[in-house]
Every structure is written in C-alpha cells, then in structure tokens.
C-alpha cells in the first residue's frame, strides 16, 4: 500500500558517504544481492527504509480500525469469523514489519511513539469511514487488491528482512482480497437495495484506492533513488495502471459501474484509461484533514494508553519471577 513513504524527502543531516563504499554497495544492489542488517549501508538508505517500513507497519495497525468497526455487525457468523481473522492478520503484519524496521536500529516503542504523536504517516486510505457493510467488501476487494499490487514487487526489495516480511504478508493477504470480492458478489446478486449499497461503496472507494499508489511519477522526485536502490521496483503510475487493468473487469463482472465517465478500454495498448485523480484531496487527507484522521489517531492512543497497565504488570511480573528464581538458586548453592 503502502509505499507512499517513498515519495517524500528523507529528513536528517546530510551525510557524506565514502564513495568507495557507496560504489561497492550499489554493485551489490545491481547484482541483486540482498542487504542484511549488519551489512554496511548508506545512511540515506537506512533512513528511507526505516521511514518506509514503519509507515507500512503503522498502516497495518491503523488499518484494523475501519474494519474493526464492522466485526460486531457482520451479517453472519461466517462473515464475522473471516473479518476477525483478517483484522488479526493485519495486527500480525504490523508486528512483522515493526520487527523488520527494528533490524535497522530503531525500537518499536520509538516508532509507535511517532505514530501516536501524529509525527508519522500511514496510508491515506484509512482516513475514510466505513459507512455500510458493502464498505467491508470494497476494502477487501479494492484496498487489499491495491496493497497486493504494491506488495508483490516488495517481496524482491533489496533489504532482506523487509523482503522476507513481505513474502509472509503477501501469502496471507490473498485471502483478504478474495473474501472482499465474495462480499461484493453476494451483495450484487442480492436484492436491488443490496446491489445499490455495493454500487455506493464502489463510488466512494474507487478514487481513494487509486490514490493509494501515491502521486504521479511526474511529481514524485524521490522515487528515482528508491528505484536505484531497488527498494522500489515499479513506479507509482506503473502500479496504478496494473491495478486498474486488473480491477475494472472484476467490477464489470459484478455488474457495477465505476465513478469515472472517462474510463474506457484502449484497444491499441490493451490498457484501461482513467480520468484525472483529485490530488488536492489526496494532499488534504495525507496532511491530516481527511474525514477520519483525528478519530483514527484518538482510537490508537486510547488503545495504547488503556493497555499500559497490562504491559507494566507483565514486565513487573517477569522481573519478580526472575528475582525469585535467582534467590532460590543462591539459597540452593
């Protein structure tokens, strides 16, 4: 999804790297070698990855909220069990990713603190509300579909721990997309009211899903360095086009229409051409002014604060047990 982080400038003091080491590093990347945690790496590579992986982790964790909203109201036990498993997977994905980021020398606590303080970003898509059950279908089908499109090339990203986390995540995520599409299919084959609900959800989620791939290539200068380091393998526009080409026929199969009057199939290229994306909306949402930004962060903060006593108690219990074992050992000697 979640490579929106690769479109921004990396902050921090400029560091002049040893040109010889830099050349050897680039040679390893060009030879498709994986970079591992203790290997030498340019500071900018490390910072880019920390920001990218942590924003990806934050997106997974915040991404639990819009769907969690519907767990208690799922229309059947089958749907409820699936949604619960999906949301649990997202928590797990967040954990794999925080662990991958930690191999770069930051702690999970630091990263999480940045999220809660509103200093770190997460995918813009999770700042939209889930108004009806059809939104759960659309999230699985479109949002997870877009995420998979983005994440499959990340399985070959140059940083080993990130690539390994992505392999696990991609394996698990294909169920997410399929369960979403199945929800949409069921609604579209149901009553006219159910089909209208599916259409309404598609109308609201289509454009935000396209924005998930980040700004157009012409406006994203930082993509270039990430491509050279093979953190990123395809540009934003390439991935967006792949997603549109894969998704439009699926929507037509459902008997739904896309909220884009300019959408048409281009016979000569074999691609679906789409209309202009409202990048002002994207910037607004990313800057914190989407429909749910405040609500999402408030929910995460509350969960973190409400759980603080559990973390403290668990650490105190572990310390007490260690002390007791030590005392017993000494007494026995």
């Amino acid at each position: 999804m979640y490579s929106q982080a690769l479109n921004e400038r990396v902050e921090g003091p400029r560091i002049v790297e040893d040109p010889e080491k830099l050349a050897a590093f680039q040679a390893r990347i060009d030879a498709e070698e994986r970079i591992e945690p203790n290997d030498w790496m340019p500071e900018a590579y490390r910072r880019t990855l920390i920001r990218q992986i942590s924003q990806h982790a934050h997106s997974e964790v915040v991404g639990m909220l819009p769907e969690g909203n519907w767990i208690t109201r799922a229309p059947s036990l089958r749907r409820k069990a699936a949604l619960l498993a999906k949301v649990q997977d997202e928590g797990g994905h967040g954990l794999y990713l925080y662990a991958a980021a930690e191999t770069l020398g930051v702690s999970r606590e630091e990263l999480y603190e940045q999220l809660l303080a509103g200093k770190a970003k997460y995918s813009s898509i999770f700042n939209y509300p889930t108004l009806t059950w059809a939104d759960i279908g659309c999230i699985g089908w479109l949002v997870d579909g877009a995420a998979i499109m983005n994440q499959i090339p990340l399985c070959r990203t140059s940083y080993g721990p990130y690539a390994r986390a992505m392999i696990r995540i991609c394996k698990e995520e294909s169920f997410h997309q399929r369960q979403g599409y199945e929800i949409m299919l069921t609604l579209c084959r149901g009553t006219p009211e159910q089909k209208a609900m599916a259409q309404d959800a598609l109308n609201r989620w289509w454009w935000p899903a396209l924005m998930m791939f980040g700004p157009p290539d012409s406006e994203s200068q930082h993509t270039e360095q990430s491509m050279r380091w093979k953190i990123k393998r395809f540009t934003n526009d390439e991935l967006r086009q792949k997603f549109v080409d894969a998704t439009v026929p699926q929507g037509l199969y459902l008997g739904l229409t896309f909220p884009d009057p300019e959408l048409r199939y281009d016979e000569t290229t074999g691609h679906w051409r789409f209309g202009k994306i409202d990048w002002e909306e994207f910037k607004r949402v990313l800057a914190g002014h989407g429909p749910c930004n405040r609500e999402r962060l408030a929910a995460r903060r509350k969960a973190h604060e409400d759980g603080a006593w559990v973390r403290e108690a668990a650490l105190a219990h572990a310390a007490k047990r260690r002390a007791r074992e030590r005392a017993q050992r000494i007494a026995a000697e």
Partner: protein
Amino acid sequence: MAEAKMPLWEVFIRSRTGLAHRHVGSVHAPDAEMALQAARDTYTRRGEGLSIWVVPSAAITASDPADKGPLFEPTASKIYRHPSFYEIPEEVGHM
C-alpha cells in the same frame, strides 16, 4: 512518557516432524512464556508449525559480515572435500 522496553526474542519454528527449527522472525515479550504465546499468535495462524523455540535476541552471537572473506572463502579452494573430485571407473558402479 517513555515506556520501559519489552525484551526482544527470536522465533524458530519446526514446520514438520523431522525438519529442523527455522528462524521465522521475532517478537517482543516480558518473559519466555509470553514470548512463546506471542510467537504462536504471530507466526502460526495457518498451521505453520508443530514446535516453537524462542531465544532472547541478546543471547545470539553473530559473525561479522565484514569477516565473510576470511571465514568462508578458504573452502572455495578445497574442492577435494566434494565427492565429484574423485574419479571412480564406471565399471565399479554407483558409489
């Protein structure tokens, strides 16, 4: 307020009987028991394992990637350690 940090554990999973435990990732937990529980929830949601090991990350001693040459290169020249180095007449059969 800065919170106390949870210790880090490396997680190893045996996927089937007869296979070795393999490193799959890490978890944070206050003690070994909770690390096992967290590893089970995080890494075995789809029948990935029959057995889990958790090891405090701080207990692992790793080789330095900078020593890769002196540590591992000498074996490249020791081709006599491989069976294909030795010539056995075909009449002798498979050996």
